[in-house]
């Protein structure tokens, strides 16, 4: 292990400008996935890039979103996959076919998030969020396991 050369400018630049703006752009790509190029896979991958770039430059410390531990990331990946699968099963429960979002009553979400989205668009929006969560957590999980050594019996 070579000695780490700390660079104040790099820390400041990455923590203050690079990572937050990459994440903001990822949210834009995710939320506007229905009207412009974008969607779940892309948004999740860009969001993961924001976390990975801070971990590449700062290591695993407070500035690089260390609250996203491996256990948390695994739970997030399960949550994203579960959202997608649950929306698929909800179509069956409300009398449609599997993955048919048109029959799921989601119009009450308009009170929380005003907009003239129909049920089907709201279902697509929810599963895009699930995909983004799953892709985001899995990419950071891959990066963490391949980059930082696991200590002894430190099972996540």
């Amino acid at each position, binding site marked *: 292990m070579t000695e780490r050369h700390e660079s104040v400018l790099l820390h400041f630049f990455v923590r203050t400008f690079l990572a937050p703006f990459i994440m903001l752009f990822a949210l834009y790509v995710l939320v506007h*996935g229905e009207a412009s190029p974008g969607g779940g896979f892309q948004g999740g991958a860009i969001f993961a890039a924001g976390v990975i770039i801070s971990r590449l430059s700062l290591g695993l410390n407070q500035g690089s979103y260390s609250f996203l531990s491996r256990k948390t990331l695994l739970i997030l990946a399960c949550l994203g996959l579960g959202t997608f699968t649950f929306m698929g099963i909800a179509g069956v429960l409300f009398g449609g076919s599997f993955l048919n979002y048109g029959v799921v009553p989601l119009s009450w979400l308009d009170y929380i998030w005003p907009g003239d989205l129909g049920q*089907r668009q709201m279902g*697509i929006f929810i599963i895009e969020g699930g995909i983004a969560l799953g892709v985001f957590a899995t990419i950071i999980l891959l990066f963490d396991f391949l980059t930082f050594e696991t200590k002894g019996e430190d099972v996540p």
Partner: protein
Amino acid sequence: MNKLALPIVIIFAIIFIFSTSTLPNRADVNSPSNLHVSPTYIEHTEKDIGIENIVSAVLADYRGYDTLGETFVIFTAGVAVLAVMTRRRTS
């Protein structure tokens, strides 16, 4: 084996480039892949789904099974890396 690799690759590339003469031209409007199902997606997305991005509509709604399997694939990759890189107690 290493000596054989280059001739094999060159023969493969020549066969591939000759076989492209039967493929449709670049940017051909009437190529078979542009006439089969994609006009249906383009013309019916506005009415069926109601969102502007046709790629998102096909990804999330028309071909939702595909995307669900895809999410399972990447989740499985994450779990596989977890299983490979985690050190066992007994080794």
